[in-house]
């Protein structure tokens, strides 16, 4: 008797599973089992639930904290309660937080991905809940749809601005062959890959033959690590410029140069982020240029986009940003190059 019951249960379970798999999330397939009715409740939650939005943060650093500040300010203006949770760079926590938000009956969630490849998993976990990916891009933009959008900056632009600035610098000097030292962020992250790729592509496109003076240096976006890596190379390795994936590592390089009694303004050092310290270094002439990534704008943009999704409004309504020309589900918050000429605007 017992075994038969168990068998029936297993069969029913397998049927439910295969049905769900066939549905592929395109339509909420009516599940045949009894408890299939339970999840439907959350979908039919009162519209008032949009007042609560969760922002899932990959980690807390200076830049992302500014993003949170922007989103919090925008939430206060819109009368939305924003809860920020921190994954501490653990991808599985991201899924947990999204499921918790869904269970709480929230209509939309803002996600700053730990890992781009996690995007599909997040979309599945969110069920009917709408998603705004912010800052870090999903692995495939084709995953975006009417319910899943992206708000952020195009990482290929940040490296492009670095590359253009360096190309101009060396062309003005009449130099077309350069040796560079490249400080990489955390390997495997989209930002690291695209920043490195785009700066090298841009140099090449501008007729600069760039070769690496060392093996690729990986300083994980950390200032002390960059300092320790650059220091032994000074005086032992010939190079024309230092390219850094962020300001913190560029500042580490500057610190290394200064501690070796070398002038950091002699050879261009370029960063990305335009942090307070980065901007100060540009103003002091120690860093050649940096690229401003609008953390506040991304935070505000993400919250506005979330509300637009819930209200069925156009993605960029209420923002100063533009939707991508080809993919209507991307809202671009532009990067801005910052050098000595305009750094005062960013301080």
């Amino acid at each position, binding site marked *: 008797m017992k075994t038969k019951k168990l068998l029936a249960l297993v069969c029913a379970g397998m049927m439910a599973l295969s049905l769900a798999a066939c549905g592929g999330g395109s339509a909420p397939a009516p599940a045949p089992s009894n408890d299939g009715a339970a999840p439907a409740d959350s979908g039919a939650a009162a519209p008032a639930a949009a007042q609560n939005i969760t922002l899932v943060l990959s980690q807390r650093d200076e830049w992302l904290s500014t993003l949170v500040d922007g989103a919090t300010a925008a939430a206060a203006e819109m009368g939305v309660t924003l809860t920020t949770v921190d994954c501490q760079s653990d991808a599985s926590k991201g899924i947990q937080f999204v499921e918790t938000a869904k269970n709480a009956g929230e209509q939309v969630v803002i996600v700053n991905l730990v890992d781009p490849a996690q995007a599909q998993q997040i979309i599945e976990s969110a069920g009917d809940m709408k998603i705004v990916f912010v800052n870090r891009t999903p692995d495939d933009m084709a995953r975006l749809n009417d319910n899943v959008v992206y708000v952020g900056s195009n990482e290929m632009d940040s490296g492009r601005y670095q590359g253009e600035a360096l190309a101009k610098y060396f062309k003005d000097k009449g130099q077309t062959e350069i040796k560079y030292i490249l400080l990489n962020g955390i390997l495997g992250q989209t930002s690291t890959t695209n920043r490195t790729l785009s700066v090298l592509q841009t140099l090449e496109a501008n007729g600069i033959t760039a070769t690496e003076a060392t093996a690729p240096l990986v300083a994980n976006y950390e*200032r002390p690590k960059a300092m320790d890596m650059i220091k032994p190379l000074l005086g032992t390795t010939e190079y024309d410029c230092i390219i850094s994936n962020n300001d913190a590592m560029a500042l580490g390089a500057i610190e290394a140069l200064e501690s070796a*009694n070398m002038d950091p303004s002699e050879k261009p050092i370029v960063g990305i982020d335009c942090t307070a310290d980065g901007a*100060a270094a540009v103003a002091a002439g120690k860093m050649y240029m940096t690229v401003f990534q609008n953390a506040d704008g991304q935070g505000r943009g993400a919250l506005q986009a979330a509300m637009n999704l819930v209200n069925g409004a156009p993605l960029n309504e209420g923002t100063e940003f533009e939707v991508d020309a080809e993919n209507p589900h991307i809202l671009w918050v532009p990067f801005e190059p910052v050098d000595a000429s305009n750094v005062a605007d960013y301080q």
Partner: protein
Amino acid sequence: MSEQTKTAAKAGNFNAKKFFSDNAIWAVLIGMVIAMNFLIYARKGAWVFLTPNNIRTLFESESVRGVLTFGVMIAILSKGIDLSTGSLAGMVAVMVASFVQPVDLSTRVLTSGFSLPSFVAIIVGLLIGAAVGAIMGAIIAYTKIHPFIATLGGQLICRAVAKMYSNRPVSNLPDSFRAIARVPYATADGKTSSFPTIIIVFVVMFAISAFLLTQTRFGKNIYAIGGNDQAARVAGINVELNLVLVYVWCSTCAALGGILLAARTGSADASTYGLQYELDAIAAATVGGTSQTGGICRPSGALAGILIMGVINNGLVLMGVDDNMTNVIKGLIIVGAVVLDMRKNAGKK
């Protein structure tokens, strides 16, 4: 084995044998330096490894992790471990840095304007470290929970407190504070140079920890506790009190490491400073012959361990070896060192 040792002792060359066995790690270090020197020459076509400048760089780079190692080696000697040192270093770095930031700085972290003279701030930082160590030590000694767990908790809490304290780098630190790591001075030709005080601090910390372990009752007690805590108790040693002191020492070293890190880089960032330094410190102590089973530790061995890690970190960058490969080599050396160590100590215990 013991029979052989006895014979050797009778023959009068026991000490020499013991000396070579104990200091085998220095032979490894010298071998590595020589090998690295030639490998880098082959790669660069110039003798750039053993230059005064590069040796200075190597010591400066390893000083912070080195000071952490002098702390954690005593925790390991007591048959414990301290996983909190990296996070604690980060926390103290951020706090001390915030005390000494120039008052007129527009991006100052402590907007209240609270500030301390550099010397006082450093003392306060060390006291914060000692207090954290006392709490962890008391929990370990009196609740008998494993040090791994107690200090893992400490690691999480210290990192979180650091991030709550400041979500952005605490930078623009004044020269008066940075003097603990480097003192700038003007050279004859009008340029500025700097004196690496951080290396002096490192050497002094080595001397203090070697003195503590070999010349004081505290040191002898820790060897006894690490070897066999029951026997130590029977011999009248206050095991609990000594364990608390072990973690006070270890955490004070970590706090000093954090202060040095902030002073050396001129900045302190809660999310990245000291990240995984606890593992680097444990690795250096282990490579230096500090046994995970407790009771065995030589300060000079730990010093050699630190320098071996430094030769790898520095040399492989000069050689242009890929970062992943560097970690593979480090991993192999750590595991290899422990295998050798266990074989060496198998006869002793």
